[in-house]
């Protein structure tokens, strides 16, 4: 019996203690949230901060954690922020490879003249509309910087 009572009172004491913590958590939450960048969600439970959301890079993620840790009353920070996946960089072929590949691709289009400079393919001459898509598909697969189409379409 005695043990039970002791337990009960402990629980009550703990509850009161926790209840008294609540406004503090809310205050910490508000303080950190105000300092964090948009897109970051701050949650605080008993002084333990959890950060969630998506940020642009690792540096922003680390900075968000520092901001939270620096706040008075914070016991720990769980950083669950995710970094946005970076889109694969644009690959542009070297001129030497591009010149050779453009020559191969345009070989069957004798009315088309193609020049390559700094990754840009410049098309001049004339071409039937029906063949244009095929030519453009061939050239687009060669990783040019740009296709400057000055063809006269018949």
């Amino acid at each position, binding site marked *: 019996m005695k043990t039970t009572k002791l337990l009960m009172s402990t629980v009550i004491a703990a509850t009161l203690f926790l209840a008294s913590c609540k406004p503090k958590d809310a205050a910490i939450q508000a303080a950190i949230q105000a300092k964090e960048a948009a897109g970051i969600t701050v949650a605080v439970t008993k002084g333990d901060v959890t950060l969630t959301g998506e940020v642009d890079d690792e540096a922003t993620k680390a900075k968000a954690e520092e901001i939270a840790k620096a706040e008075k009353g914070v016991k720990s920070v769980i950083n669950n922020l995710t970094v946005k996946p970076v889109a694969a960089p644009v690959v542009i072929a070297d001129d030497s490879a591009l010149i*050779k590949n453009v*020559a*191969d*691709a345009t070989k*069957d289009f004798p009315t088309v003249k193609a020049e390559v400079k700094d990754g840009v393919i410049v098309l001049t001459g004339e071409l039937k509309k029906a063949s244009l*898509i*095929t030519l*453009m598909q061939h050239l687009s697969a060669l990783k040019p910087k*740009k296709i400057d*189409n000055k063809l006269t379409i018949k």
Partner: protein
Amino acid sequence: MSLQDKYSALTDAATAAGITDLAVREQDGVLYIDGTAADGATKDHLWEVYNQIDPNFASGDLVLNVNVAIDAAVTHAKVVTESSNLNIRKGPGTDQPIVGKAAHGEIITLVNRSNDLWWLVRTNDGEEGYCYAQYLEAQA
């Protein structure tokens, strides 16, 4: 209007068509769309959408590089030139000597596709060499 807005119908179509590894990036005034289509019809559809937005592809502000996925198990390809025979060359490049020809519509054996642009093939007569991959359609 940004390029992403200009070509939003195209990127929407690409997403709807289930293009894998779809990447859309804008750099120095050019939009680059890369990805892999399940079949040739899907690729052609995207090119039609592109042609609607930018008639005759005259703006020079998009590089649409969507390739057709090919099952590793595929062993044959059809010659899809407009009408002429397809040259088979000793090496990958039009500067290489011609070692044979494949007829328009002929189905030939694929030996190696490690080069994206030039596939190593073998004709039914046993001639082996490189063909321009754009004129070959993998047979399921």
